[in-house]
């Protein structure tokens, strides 16, 4: 799946890099980050990872990910940003 570099969707900015599809949900009003991330992973039907750029710990997202067979991994981050890599569980 190719979300397109720099594409602005209705909920969050999406782009694709070598490491997967990125979605930046910083600045969105809760629960829009939650919904945007779920929408994105619902649209992916292969093993493409998703990189989430968030400004808060998405506490309630983890259960939803688990229900859908996805796991989250914390990756390198910068101050003021929380970055997660989401992958289908193997």
């Amino acid at each position: 799946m190719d979300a397109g570099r720099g594409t602005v969707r209705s909920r969050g900015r999406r782009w694709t890099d070598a490491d997967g599809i990125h979605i930046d949900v910083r600045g969105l009003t809760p629960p829009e980050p939650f919904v945007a991330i779920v929408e994105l992973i619902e649209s992916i039907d292969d093993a493409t990872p998703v990189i989430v750029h968030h400004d808060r710990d998405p506490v309630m997202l983890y259960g939803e990910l688990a229900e859908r067979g996805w796991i989250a991994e914390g990756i390198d981050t910068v101050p003021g940003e929380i970055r997660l890599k989401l992958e289908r569980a193997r």
Partner: protein
Amino acid sequence: MKLAAGAFLAGAGSRLLPPSIPFRFFGAAVTFHVLAWIALLAGADDVPQFAGGLGWPLAALHLVTLGVLAMTAIGASLQLLPVATRLAVGNRRWPAAIWWLYTPGVALTACGMGTGMVTVLAAGAIAVTAALVAFALLLARNLLGAKGMPIVVAHGWGALGSLAVVIATALSLAGTYVGAPIIDRASALALHVTFAAYGFMGMLALGLAYILVPMFALSAAPDEHPAWASLAIAVLALFLAGAAAIGLAPRLLDTLAVGAGLAAVGLHLRLMAVALATGMRRNLGPSFALVRIAWALLVASLLLALAVVHDVPHDGIAPLFGLVLIGGWLLTLLLGILQRIVPFLASMHAGQVRTRGKGLPPTPSALTAVRPLAIHFISHLAALALVTLAIAAGSPLIVRLGAAAGIVGALAFGAFFATAMRRMRRSQAVARAGAMPLA
């Protein structure tokens, strides 16, 4: 290194409290839920004409309000607000200290109310007050530093302001029993009921719904303008009811307050209906059936408040108003939401234990015991219906039947909670041992 969902953020972000803190509040709430129905059973003879005063109906009422509603609100706020507002709870000993003060305080308060032992009631009231003041300070600190979510934060301030009124009037009412009231009992009681139910719990319920309902329905965030209008009108309603309670044109202002309350609720429910109708997830299960029933009973409570204001000639109007307001709206709403939140939080906490494989943390559905929730659903609604019938008919026998159904439902809800905790701990133990956690 691959971590299960939640591990990274809990470790690095440090905004999330350990599971023992929120779950001890939820566990206490589940226990007080059972005790509330037992207290109602003990006070069945006095329920149909209950209009306040010491006794087991008053104890049952406060086991629900303090023991279940406020207990859960404190636990959920301590868990979720620091994450939402991006501000950590300062010293983590505070939440635990609040629990150790609040929980025995609620038990003593209920015991004092039920038995009529005023010194026990006073000791409990002091402990509860101290704990609520400490919670209010934590909440205020968090709201002051909040970033984003202004509509939820504004509802939080409304809840906090209402909590101040509730504490002051509770002290005055407790003072009545030891001969030292601050303001006259009728005014204190009217302020206490209004600001506890519609103010403190109501503002939290309305504010958090703007996040939780769209999140569960997977819909867009509600339109902010109607949400702000709803909040403004709700605050106006509280001020009108407050003015009426201290004797300013009580019938007129109370009527206007109910009208404003209905308008605020109408706007709020319209936003909720849009979220549910436009969400990606349409089937929200029995938990949201409870939420929908609770919303209907919120409207019913306001109509019954109007009947109380205009002295509708029936002995049972006041207790019926209390039942629909506390048991029908707030308790039903909370139990519906709690049965969705507990498995999500348990799943997240279970996933914090590092796994050596690539397995999933336990899913919320794997942590949910469905049969106890089905029993609770039927029993809870049967209990409400039976106690309503009992009040209308003036029958203590039917109150006992309703209380018995409530006990069954509360025990079933306790079984659901205990199962979620047991499965979470088992999953954590398996993950710590290096095996794949149960998905």
